């Protein structure tokens, strides 16, 4: 079949991003031809400012070079401006008469700088700031001339002024409004910004209206004059007074435009064969002037062009960050506030820090920050997710405290870190490498940074730092991912919650049936969605859905933890941490018989045999004759206990027995992630119940239950759930808590993540207030656990033999 023809007009960031997305999902669908008015392949426009400032070179900001187009079979016409669209015979016509026909047309023409309609606007030496040509003109001017005037004190104007100053010019910024960046900053923030730029040597004229630009004898610009009669010298004038969507081409072809090419949620114009993305498009009345929305537009547009037609673009919330080295500034949403909003303010004029958070109905609706913008990404994320912040309101101003986070030297503010400091302790990635990779590879999303640098791709505790680095490197182009909308993985657009719901409502029992029903894009998923679905099936339909070992990670498939040399570890269960001489003797014998190199006492009060060969596992289990400790599984691990009232002179409850009872009841319980318990016999809390998924503490009159603690990467103290009188109640309440978690959390959520999302109040309502519901939950848990076999003893008797044996041994060559 002949391929369809896709023609793209405008070789900029939005358009090329759309092509990249198409190549990812439908590489063979189209013959692609691209027209670009500029003589360059695709470059990162937002990094023109660092180029002007002398911090980067043009080569460093290329995103896709000419080779990229060639490699992907794309015909590229540089230096060719399209001037006409013939919609009837479906072709585009260039200024030089060149024609190309299309089946689908993608308009990505960006925007044009707005030029003040004043006398002298066309004089040599008067330029705008949009592309490489303009940037080169400024760099050139800076080496010959002295006085620069920048008209416009917005984002672009200030970045231009800063660059010119760094290149040695004497720069005055002229601004019409009462303060700088009035669309992004309030007066206080703007004054602080002005002061710090003045310290860098910039001059400002506010509330000034430019009326004319005057030339010298040779016809080059010489002076600028204002409505109040004042005049200042100027050898270079940069107009940065705003942009307007470049919809001329579309308009001339009769496509509906209102300050931008009007597009639907699928990025189609009024002519459904013609799409528009980027700054030239007007979506629901908004034409964006930042990069962040382009990525979502590009995704949706590509999806539609590839005939998948699932995605819809529903608009973006944007934030602003100024890319002037040494000046920290952040703004998002409604930063001014209104009658029905509240503000939290922090203003340290001497220290140069100003933070304002605007709240409405306990939700962040806007924020502006100067000096310390480390938490900008965090606030912005909550703003986008419309998260209720009532509970954390007291701490909001002090930021996302990363206290207790380990692995990156306790740092929580990326800006203060040196390039050589380690950000990701798991993968040994330091800040300099991340910044360099972001710039060189042109990355914009957290996922991209993870893929290319591995930073934050393991334990994730440094995610916040990486996000900050990303935000400060690419400026407003960074769009934090909204958690809510996040699909499970690249195989689908559906979320975890949607998958669970479909499994429940449609009574689905197998992975293929889920994938078919939800129209998975891949034939059998990937290593992140298959284990999740397998768990959702098992937890929703116990005794009905069949476990699929091939969709489990190796540890759960082999029922032992794989070690870095490919051997395995074996941790037998010791209920409540209690053992006896017979067990210890068997363990000792096994160690000798199988030459097990390391025997270690774990942090969970049991014994770990490390370095067991895979083929020996079933025999080791048979000889041990002890149940699996599930140390390898997303399941109940240990119940840590202290000695308690039986021996301890402080003890008020028999914590050891309570621990044994809990462990016997809930062993073999699979969950979204690992689950750890602890039981202490008195408030001295020797078993460290405060940092466990469920922590139980004996008091004189009964037991206190704490939930959702975590002792790992990010230490989280467990929250008080309730106090009960009897051991039976401890079982019922903690069991009910676990069952809500098992039924509703996302796969790989620890209890702490899940409770942080749904709130402790929700947990209390399900487990405490609704007595019937609690009993039902507990009942469902017990039903799920009923008859669950011990995986080790099954395998010792020959189940899944193939897992432990080699297929064949080939004679020595």
């Amino acid at each position, binding site marked *: 079949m002949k391929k369809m023809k896709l023609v793209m007009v405008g070789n900029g960031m939005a358009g090329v991003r759309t092509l990249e997305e198409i190549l990812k999902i439908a590489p063979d669908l189209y013959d692609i031809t691209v027209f670009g008015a500029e003589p360059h392949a695709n470059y990162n426009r937002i990094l023109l400012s660092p180029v002007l400032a002398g911090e980067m070179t043009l080569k460093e900001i290329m995103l896709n070079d000419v080779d990229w187009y060639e490699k992907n079979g794309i015909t590229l016409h540089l230096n060719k401006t399209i001037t006409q669209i013939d919609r009837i015979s479906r072709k585009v016509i260039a200024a030089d008469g060149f024609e190309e026909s299309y089946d689908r047309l993608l308009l990505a023409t960006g925007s044009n700088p707005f030029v003040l309609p004043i006398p002298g606007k066309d004089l040599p030496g008067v330029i705008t700031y949009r592309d490489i040509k303009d940037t080169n003109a400024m760099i050139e001017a800076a080496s010959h001339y002295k006085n620069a005037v920048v008209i416009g004190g917005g984002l672009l104007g200030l970045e231009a002024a800063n660059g010119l100053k760094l290149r040695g010019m004497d720069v005055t910024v002229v601004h019409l409004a009462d303060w700088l960046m009035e669309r992004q900053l309030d007066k206080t923030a703007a004054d602080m910004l002005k002061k710090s730029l003045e310290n860098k040597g910039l001059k400002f004229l506010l509330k000034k209206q430019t009326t004319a630009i005057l030339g010298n004898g040779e016809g080059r610009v010489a002076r600028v004059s204002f409505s109040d009669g004042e005049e200042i010298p100027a050898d270079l004038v940069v107009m940065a007074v705003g942009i307007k969507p470049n919809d001329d081409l579309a308009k001339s072809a009769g496509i509906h435009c209102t300050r931008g090419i009007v597009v639907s949620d699928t990025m189609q114009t009024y002519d459904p064969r013609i799409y528009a993305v980027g700054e030239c498009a007007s979506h629901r009345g908004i034409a964006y002037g930042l990069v962040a929305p382009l990525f979502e537009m590009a995704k949706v547009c590509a999806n539609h062009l590839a005939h998948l037609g699932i995605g819809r673009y529903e608009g973006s919330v944007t934030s602003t960050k100024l890319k002037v080295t040494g000046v920290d500034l952040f703004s998002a949403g409604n930063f001014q506030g209104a009658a029905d909003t509240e503000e939290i303010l922090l203003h340290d004029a001497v220290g140069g820090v100003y933070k304002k958070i605007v709240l409405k109905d306990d939700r962040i609706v806007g924020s502006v920050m100067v000096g310390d913008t480390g938490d900008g990404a965090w606030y912005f994320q909550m703003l986008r997710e419309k998260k209720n912040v009532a509970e954390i309101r007291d701490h909001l101003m002090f930021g996302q405290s990363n206290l207790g986070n380990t692995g990156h030297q306790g740092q929580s503010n990326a800006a203060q870190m040196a390039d050589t400091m380690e950000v990701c302790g798991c993968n040994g990635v330091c800040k300099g490498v991340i910044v360099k990779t972001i710039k060189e590879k042109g990355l914009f999303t957290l996922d991209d940074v993870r893929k290319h640098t591995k930073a934050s791709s*393991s334990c994730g505790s440094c995610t916040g730092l990486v996000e900050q680095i990303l935000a400060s490197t690419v400026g407003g182009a960074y769009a934090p991912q909204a958690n809510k909308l996040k699909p499970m993985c690249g195989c689908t657009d559906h979320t975890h919650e949607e998958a669970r719901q479909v499994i429940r409502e449609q009574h689905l029992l197998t992975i293929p049936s889920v994938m078919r029903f939800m129209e998975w894009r891949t034939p*059998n998923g990937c*290593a992140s969605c298959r284990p999740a679905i397998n768990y959702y099936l098992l937890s929703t339909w116990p005794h009905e859905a069949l476990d699929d070992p091939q969709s489990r990670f*190796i540890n759960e498939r*082999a029922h032992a933890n794989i070690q870095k040399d*490919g051997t395995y570890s074996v941790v037998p269960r010791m209920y409540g941490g209690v053992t006896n001489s017979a067990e210890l003797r068997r363990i000792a014998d096994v160690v000798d018989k199988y030459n097990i190199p390391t025997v270690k006492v774990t942090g969970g009060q049991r014994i770990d045999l490390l370095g067991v060969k895979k083929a020996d596992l079933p025999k080791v289990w048979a000889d041990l004759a002890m149940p699996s400790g599930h140390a390898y599984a997303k399941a109940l691990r240990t119940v840590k206990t202290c000695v308690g009232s039986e021996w301890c002179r402080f003890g008020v409850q028999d914590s050891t027995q309570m621990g044994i009872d809990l462990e016997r009841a809930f062993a073999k319980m699979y969950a979204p992630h690992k689950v750890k318990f602890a039981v202490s016999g008195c408030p001295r809390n020797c078993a460290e119940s405060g940092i466990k998924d469920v922590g139980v503490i004996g008091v004189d009159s009964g037991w206190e239950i704490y939930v959702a603690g975590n002792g790992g990467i990010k230490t989280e103290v467990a929250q008080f759930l309730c106090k009960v009188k009897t051991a039976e109640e401890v079982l019922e309440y903690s069991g009910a808590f676990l069952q809500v978690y098992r039924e509703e959390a996302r796969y790989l959520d620890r209890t702490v993540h899940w409770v942080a999302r749904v709130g402790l109040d929700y947990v209390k309502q399900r487990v405490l207030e609704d007595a019937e519901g609690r009993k039902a939950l507990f009942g469902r848990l017990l039903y799920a656990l009923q008859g669950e076999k011990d995986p080790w003893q099954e395998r010792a008797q020959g189940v899944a033999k*193939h897992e432990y044996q*080699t297929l*064949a041994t*080939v004679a020595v060559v």
Partner: protein
Amino acid sequence: MNAPEKAIMNEWINVGAVEDIPRLGARVVQSAHGDIAVFRNADDEVFALLDKCPHKGGPLSQGIVFGRHVACPLHNWNIGLDDGKAVAPDEGCAHRFAVKVVDQQVFLNI
């Protein structure tokens, strides 16, 4: 021992039946080159790679198989079963071995 060596080098060796390998799974064949992972995907295609991830040597046979890829169990690199290549942006290649299936029997050419 020269003669048998040659014979083996250019010959197809039967290592077992397709059925012996779990669908979307793998089994290991021990050889003088080291362990070889023999994979079977959902379409019953069979592939063979050296059981050593190009990253840090993880045992690919223990990974999760999907489509024509396997995810390494140690750090989740995705390796192509048909070409042994790591999926971008990761870079590296696991050694491939020729495989054929005749009458549901798997043969390797090592």
